[in-house]
Structure formats: structure tokens, C-alpha cells
């Protein structure tokens, strides 16, 4: 069964550094999402992406965050200047045709900011 793959599985970064989290969605999927889960809390929506542009973003997704689909397969989340509170698990998800389809999640990237 096709999978969403995320790399790296764990990233440790000094505060203030830039970090890029990478995702390869399922190949025929058109809608892409990033979610965040702070340790011990629920999963929160960050941003959705369709047709090479952001379709929706949450209040969490401020100017420090950006997303990109640099080629036909990768979908990246960049945090420009990391803060301690950015420490969390970040999940990428994709769906084939949008809101009436199940979202398929990657295994997540655990980001630790020191």
C-alpha cells in the first residue's frame, strides 16, 4: 500500500537555526497538509496546500513557517528561526481529492529544539 514518507524521523536543532522537514506524499494525491503535536497534547492543523499554493493556514503558521513543493514529489515545511516552543512532532498528510477522502499520515518527524 502506498505510504506518505517523512524525513528525518528525528531532528535536533539549536534555537534560532533554520530547519526543513521533508515529506513525500502518495504519488497521485493532490492535497497536502502539515500538522503539529506538542508532547502530551492533541494534534493541531498547521497548513493545507493544493495546486502549488496554500489553501488554508492556522494561527500557529506565522511568518516563521513556510511550505513548498519544490518538485513533483517532495513537500517541505521550513521553520526559519526555531524557538524552544517549536519542539513537537510534525506530521505530513495527503489526500487524493480533498475533504471527502481519508487523509494518509506519515510517521512524523520529532523536532527537538535545544
Amino acid at each position, binding site marked *: 500500500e502506498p505510504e506518505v514518507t517523512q524525513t528525518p524521523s528525528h531532528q535536533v536543532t539549536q534555537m534560532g537555526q533554520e530547519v526543513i522537514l521533508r515529506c513525500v506524499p502518495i504519488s497521485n494525491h493532490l*492535497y497536502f497538509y502539515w500538522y503539529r503535536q506538542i508532547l502530551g497534547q492533541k*494534534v493541531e492543523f498547521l497548513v*493545507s496546500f493544493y495546486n502549488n499554493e496554500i489553501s488554508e493556514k492556522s494561527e500557529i503558521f506565522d511568518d516563521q513557517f513556510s511550505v513548498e513543493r519544490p518538485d513533483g514529489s517532495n513537500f517541505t515545511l521550513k521553520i526559519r528561526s526555531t524557538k524552544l516552543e517549536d519542539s513537537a512532532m510534525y*506530521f505530513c498528510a495527503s489526500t487524493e481529492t480533498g*475533504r*471527502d477522502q481519508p*487523509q494518509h499520515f506519515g510517521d512524523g518527524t520529532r523536532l527537538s529544539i535545544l
Partner: protein
Amino acid sequence: GIQVEQSPPDLILQEGANSTLRCNFSDSVNNLQWFHQNPWGQLINLFYIPSGTKQNGRLSATTVATERYSLLYISSSQTTDSGVYFCAGAFYNQGGKLIFGQGTELSVKP
């Protein structure tokens, strides 16, 4: 805003027992999913169930969309069922994003 509420927040079971987890939501859904988060943090998709009933082995789920709730049944629980169970919904007029509940933390004792 839209609310997704899960109950109970915590549940401790003896191996072999059955359980029911509940998810209430405050608006009409066009997508409802149940996930199991394992000890490594992975979100394992259990069911895509915007309405009706589905079964997969010892697990089954029912969503009554008109009454805005979903139930996850676990029968003959095993220690490997331990972890956090999340429900998440995508709602009309809310784009396609999933809104997650706070989760039910299940612990199955041998």
C-alpha cells in the same frame, strides 16, 4: 469554534476486556477518522468512517452523523492495544483540515 470531544480521557483495562470510546462533534462532518497513536508516536489510521459501521478484526466503529457522534469498539483487548486513540473530523465550511479530539489514553494490563 468547532469542538471534537472524546471520552473517557483515560481508560485502564484488563487484557481480554471490551471497551467503547466515544467522540462527539459539534457540526456536520464530511470526514471522520479514528487513529491509534503507538508508543513511537506514529498515527495509525484505524477507520475512515463519516457515517455507518465498519469492522476490522477486533475493532469496529460506528458514526451516527445526524446525532454527531462516533464510537470505537475494542473487543478482547490486548496489551498491544495500549496507546492514545484520536478521532478527527473534517467539517463542512472548514476546508479539508482535520480537527482532532484530545484523545483517549488506553492502558491494557496483562
